[in-house]
């Protein structure tokens, strides 16, 4: 069991982050932990993999899973939670409506970071106002002024919340799980990420290497002719991935040795496949991690 309350699954595009998040959710529920899996993924692949409907866009939806713990899914859209924050911290209905109908807010609500940065600008005074006016024009400045004015009563509440989230992400019980492709070219990036994460005060847990090709030992009479393109490729991919995993093993310390998920012969689009990946992970770690 990973000793965490929050697991943040990270990695480059297409390496299998959402699939792994779903697998870890299933594993935790099977280990009798009530678990919520959340995603910002705009393609909503989690919805398909865990078999929940569109309802998960607005609320937490329970996954029909036979397990001692409950498993729920929530599909997040960046603008939704921000709308909710505005509704929560606005001192009265008039302030709330003023913000929600602001032209600038409507454009920015999809980007939380952007909104917070704009708010920070609002707090920093008017030193560069003349410059901004020259660059972006009066229209936008008027919108910004109205926006900051409308936001003023909310700023402290949101700032405190942002600081709480910042601290939560650094707690020992918040663990980052890095997912990687198997090729050796990803190793340097993973080590760079691990270093940066620790420098920033976060905690890196296991590194998961996904989609690892099987290794073909020696001559295999079942494979096509040795000279064929396909035969060479099968052998080469197995060997390439072995090199990548070995290199990671040699660089990572004993506490976070890579967990290997082999390339599957089907796509992880349902609970049965996710259950299979969970079993593979358990076998790979001797039950030490995602049980």
């Amino acid at each position, binding site marked *: 069991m990973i000793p965490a309350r929050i697991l943040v699954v990270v990695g480059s595009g297409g390496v299998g982050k959402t699939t792994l998040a779903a697998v870890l959710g299933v594993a935790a529920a099977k280990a009798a932990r009530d678990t919520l899996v959340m995603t910002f993924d705009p393609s909503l692949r989690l919805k398909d993999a865990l078999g929940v409907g569109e309802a998960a866009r607005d609320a937490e939806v329970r996954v029909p899973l036979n397990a001692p713990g409950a498993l729920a899914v929530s599909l997040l859209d960046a603008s939704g939670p921000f709308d909710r924050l505005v509704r929560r911290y606005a001192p009265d209905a008039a302030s709330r409506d003023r913000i929600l109908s602001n032209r600038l807010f409507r454009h920015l609500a999809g980007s939380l970071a952007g909104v917070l940065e704009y708010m920070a600008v609002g707090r920093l005074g008017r030193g560069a106002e003349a410059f901004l006016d020259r660059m972006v024009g009066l229209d936008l400045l008027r919108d910004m002024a109205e926006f900051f004015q409308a936001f003023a009563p909310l700023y402290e509440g949101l700032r405190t919340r942002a600081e709480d989230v910042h601290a939560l992400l650094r707690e020992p019980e918040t663990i980052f799980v890095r997912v990687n492709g198997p090729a050796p070219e990803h190793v340097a990036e993973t080590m760079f990420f691990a270093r940066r994460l620790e420098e920033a005060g976060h905690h890196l847990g296991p590194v998961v290497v996904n989609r690892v090709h099987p290794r073909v030992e020696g001559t295999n009479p*079942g494979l096509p002719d040795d000279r064929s393109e396909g035969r060479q490729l099968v052998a080469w991919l197995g060997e390439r991935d072995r090199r990548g995993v070995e290199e990671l093993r040699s660089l990572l310390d004993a506490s976070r040795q890579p967990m290997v998920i082999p390339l599957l012969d*089907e796509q992880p689009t349902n609970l049965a496949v996710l259950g299979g990946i969970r079993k593979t992970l358990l076998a790979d770690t001797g039950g030490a991690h995602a049980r």
Partner: protein
Amino acid sequence: MVSAAVGRLLAARGRRVLAIEFDPRENLHHLRDVPPSGGDITAAGGGLVLQNLQPHQVLDELVRERLKLGMLARKVLTSPVYRHVAEGAPGLKETGVLGRAMRLIEGHGPRGLRRPDLVVLDAPATGHGVSLLHALTLVARVVRSGPVGHIASEIASFVGDRKHTGVITVTLAEEMPVRECLELISGLAETLARRAEAIVVNGLYPPLDRSAAAEDDPAVALFRRRRKINETQLARLRTRWNGPLVELPFLPVDRGPELTREVTLRLGRDLDAVSKELA
């Protein structure tokens, strides 16, 4: 990889090509066996130059260009207000990078750089690619006056016009990447009223020789099943996309100059075939 190959292909055909990436991890130099540029323009041989562009540098340059007085520019660049706007304003950085590509093509590049005939931009992953398009139109809509507003609308028309800007979408032949690729294609139509020039399907498992059956061998069975997934997804793409579609197989070569050479050859051959077919 495909960006590097496209750059190399067009440079080999006599065009002056600048390949730009804005991933801070720098990938293009690996593919051409040249050292990391650290942001400088680096010659990669045969009419191809590379640059790793950091969006904040682009915006800083814009400030220096607009505020010709050095002292004033320094004051703005060190101002926390400017830093926060440059960092946090959604779409501004992306607009800056696209604007930079446009300006280089128009001949407003730095001293020492011959005006390129073509800029190849290694854009972010597909999901973010859609955001890039939205960012562009967002800035053009929100900022309607002032230099930034003018630049944003100019870029939106430049990127929307197929005479000036081509879009090549790269995908894997798997369920989710294909869905995202199709979403990008729809996004291009809805946001910029345009279509892509080609879809490149990368990392395909080539068909195995039928005579060597042995389905009970796990490696062969896995290989065939992955090929089957690829074929299903290629068929799905073809039902929704009637434009050029280039297939690139997995190749038994590590990432580096040799792989770029190989991909360039195949891309050139297939794109030529596609052009003939269309002609």
